């Protein structure tokens, strides 16, 4: 009774795992060969293992494969990649959900440094550009800056972002204008401070976003919502910024 699996009913359908095939994008900036893909086969996998576990096993076979990871539980945002055509985090993607061969590519539209590692400099520059910190003119009060429960609630769905980049790398507007359109991730962060009752720079923030590019390249395509591994809704956040701009300008 080799494949007697008492908890089988708790597992999502998918390959009975065991052996799985992976097709991984490879690029070595120092090598002469251009980018290509490499096939790997792993044995003894189970459907409940995460893709990151498989990648770590591949790395045991072939230590030249480069990818980022840290927390292993969907918190740090470092192992974002394109998994079978869809951006996601390897550490919270179950092998059982994946069709074979599992195609792994770097995040699309972002310059590749090596293999699955992309250059996030521009992404972080845009994050800094929205000045993601609380701005208040008043001196630091003796106690905390108070918020009503309703005011705190407005930040739900905005503060949870882990800056993995899955959303921006799925946004067609971001692919076309990555240098000047801020992208869903940075705009969600902008909304997080614009909506904060303790922040006093709201008008300045809105003013900064009011040009043809930074926010208004968003055409509500909603790819960002579709891929966010934290279930956030950047499109709605962008809509909230627009509403405030509208209120301010009328």
């Amino acid at each position, binding site marked *: 009774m080799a494949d007697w699996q008492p908890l089988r009913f708790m597992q999502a359908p998918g390959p009975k795992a065991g052996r799985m095939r992976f097709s991984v994008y490879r690029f070595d900036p120092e090598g002469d060969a251009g980018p290509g893909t490499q096939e790997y086969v792993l044995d003894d996998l189970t459907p409940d293992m995460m893709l990151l576990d498989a990648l770590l096993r591949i790395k045991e076979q072939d230590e030249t494969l480069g990818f980022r990871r840290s927390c292993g539980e969907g918190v740090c945002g470092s192992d974002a990649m394109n998994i079978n055509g869809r951006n996601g985090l390897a550490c919270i993607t179950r092998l059982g959900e994946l069709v074979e061969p599992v195609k792994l590519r770097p995040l699309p539209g972002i310059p590749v440094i090596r293999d699955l590692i992309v250059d996030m400099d521009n992404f972080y520059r845009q994050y800094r550009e929205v000045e993601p910190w609380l701005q208040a003119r008043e001196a630091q009060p003796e106690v905390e800056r108070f918020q009503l429960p309703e005011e705190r609630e407005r930040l739900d769905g905005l503060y949870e972002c882990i800056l993995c980049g899955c959303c921006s790398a799925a946004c067609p507007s971001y692919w076309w204008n990555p240098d000047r359109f801020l992208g869903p991730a940075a705009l969600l962060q902008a909304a997080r401070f614009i909506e904060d009752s303790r922040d006093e720079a709201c008008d300045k923030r809105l003013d900064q976003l009011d040009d043809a590019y930074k926010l208004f390249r968003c055409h509500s395509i909603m790819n960002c919502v579709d891929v966010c591994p934290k279930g956030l809704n950047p499109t709605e956040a962008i809509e909230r910024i627009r509403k405030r701009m509208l209120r301010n*300008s009328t």
Partner: protein
Amino acid sequence: MSGFSGMGAWLLQRLTAVYLVVFTVWAGIRLALADPWSYAAWSGWLGEPVNAALAWLFGVSLLAHAWVGGRDVLIDYIHPLGLRLALLSLLAGWLLGSGLVFTALVVSA
């Protein structure tokens, strides 16, 4: 509001869209109910100054709406600055020209 590129353009696009729909539906119903159903009745209705002004506004809205949309497409996809400016000027010239012709038609009618 900084100029007319961000919120301004977005707002113009929405407002003109609303007017385009409202006028189309309203004028469509009025013309469909024309009695008798004839060219004379239609041109008579459109010849009334208020209706002519509203029709003119419809034309201008259509052109403004086309401007924002066309400009969006060019900003999205055409990145070489010279080519983009050339295409934007072409679009602007064509829309302005259409606007002038349309205005002349309305005024002479």
